[in-house]
């Protein structure tokens, strides 16, 4: 459960704008996520949902606005005399270290086994000792239900298994915020359940803050603390799952939800 609304937000988007040429993908976006909150982001394709996660993960830059994580800006750092200056590489990496991301196409390292995938970053980025990293990785892989697949290569695992390794790999870096970018969209329907189950387990056990872009409405409804309906680069409407799914106020939200219901 999220902390009280007056606690400082863990993630904060203030008037964030991003353009690709003439196309405005994020339009003066404002979003505050409280520590421990689980936010589901839904909306039509091309509305900018993934871009929201990508700019937070520093995979892309923003044109205007401010993104803050745990009180620190992602793009600027305090300089002399308290003025804000563009952040150097060290600052960005430090702030980035608090965020983890799981991708739609898993992006596992094909030349490493499941275990090696999970220990790679802790050893080579955090400087953890290999033995310690291996122990932690084993625990994480057990947690996601892959205790028997340590020495398997990604090509030997199903899509659902690969995605679970990807989750373990992201968790190994102890992020404060986990981003899930349509993590079940590339999976066959019967494999979605195992991945969603892991996410559910994570949510219950940890006070991990989660932002997930998803098309799984049923999952969003029962798992999320807050649902944001994204449309044309802005949060068109947001509220609790029951507010959004049962009593949507905006017309576009209704249109989207009924279209989704039609499709299922």
């Amino acid at each position, binding site marked *: 459960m999220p902390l009280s609304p007056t606690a400082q937000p863990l993630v904060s988007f203030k008037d964030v704008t991003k353009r690709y040429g003439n196309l405005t993908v994020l339009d003066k976006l404002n979003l505050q996520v409280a520590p421990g909150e689980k936010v589901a982001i839904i909306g039509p394709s091309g509305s900018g949902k993934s871009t929201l996660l990508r700019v937070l993960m520093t995979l892309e830059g923003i044109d205007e606005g401010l993104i803050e994580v745990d009180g620190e800006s992602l793009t600027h750092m305090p300089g002399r005399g308290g003025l804000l200056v563009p952040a150097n590489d060290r600052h960005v990496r430090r702030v980035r270290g608090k965020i983890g*991301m799981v991708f739609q196409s898993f992006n596992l390292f094909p030349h490493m086994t499941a275990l090696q995938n999970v220990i790679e970053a802790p050893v080579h980025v955090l400087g953890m000792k290999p033995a310690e990293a291996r122990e932690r990785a084993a625990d994480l892989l057990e947690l996601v239900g892959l205790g028997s697949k340590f020495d398997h290569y990604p090509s030997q695992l199903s899509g659902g298994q690969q995605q679970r390794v990807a989750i373990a*790999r*992201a968790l190994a870096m102890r992020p404060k915020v986990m981003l899930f970018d349509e993590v079940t969209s590339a999976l066959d329907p019967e494999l979605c359940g195992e991945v969603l189950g892991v996410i559910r387990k994570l949510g219950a056990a940890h006070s991990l803050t989660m932002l997930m872009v998803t098309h799984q409405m049923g999952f969003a409804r029962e798992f999320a603390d807050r649902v944001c309906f994204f449309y044309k680069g802005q949060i068109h409407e947001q509220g609790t799952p029951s507010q959004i799914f049962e009593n949507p106020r905006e017309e576009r939200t209704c249109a989207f939800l009924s279209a989704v219901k039609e499709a299922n």
Partner: protein
Amino acid sequence: MGDLLPLLLQGAWVTLQVTFWGSLLAIVAAILAALGRLSPWLPLRWFSVAYIELFRGTSLLVQLFWLFFVLPLPPFNVELSSFTVAIVGLGLHIGAYGAEVMRGAIGSVAKGQYEASVALNFSAFTRFRRIILPQALLAAIAPGTNLLIELLKNTSLVSLITLSDLSFRARQLDQATFETLEIFTLALIMYFVMAQAINFGMRSLERRLSRGRMRGGLS
């Protein structure tokens, strides 16, 4: 024929050594030049392009002669042994071609690998060393094998800067014994065998490095 073999084998040993060290230099040069070519820092990019175009655009023999005849003279006054000239000339020449192969190989690594590495907070250097380069090298093996065989064949030119490789020994023996047919046939066969060995070795290497990447592997 039996008295021909020992000297020819001696020459073949020199050929193998030049091929080996030249290949190492070529691989290093190829990786550095490919990175330089992709670098956002303009002077480095221009330098890499200049290196690649210069060594690809001029004849290898010209390069070897330049290193062998011109360097020892003023104003350079650098005297290199023919062995060193051979390795440097061959390495830099093939490295220039290798740079294009590496560039293609690096470009063939899926973009998702970069994104996952950023998400896991890798530095650019560690990302290249641990994630991108291993995958690029695997992709480079197929075109790279052809280049290595080119390097092997090009070693024959070092006989013209007086290095005692297989070609040099063949010429030497011919001038001494005039058993021309046997000598040059043997030399050709030896080169052929060495080329096939490289082929075989690279194919085995490719199989070993891509273990686990094959679809439908072990359960």
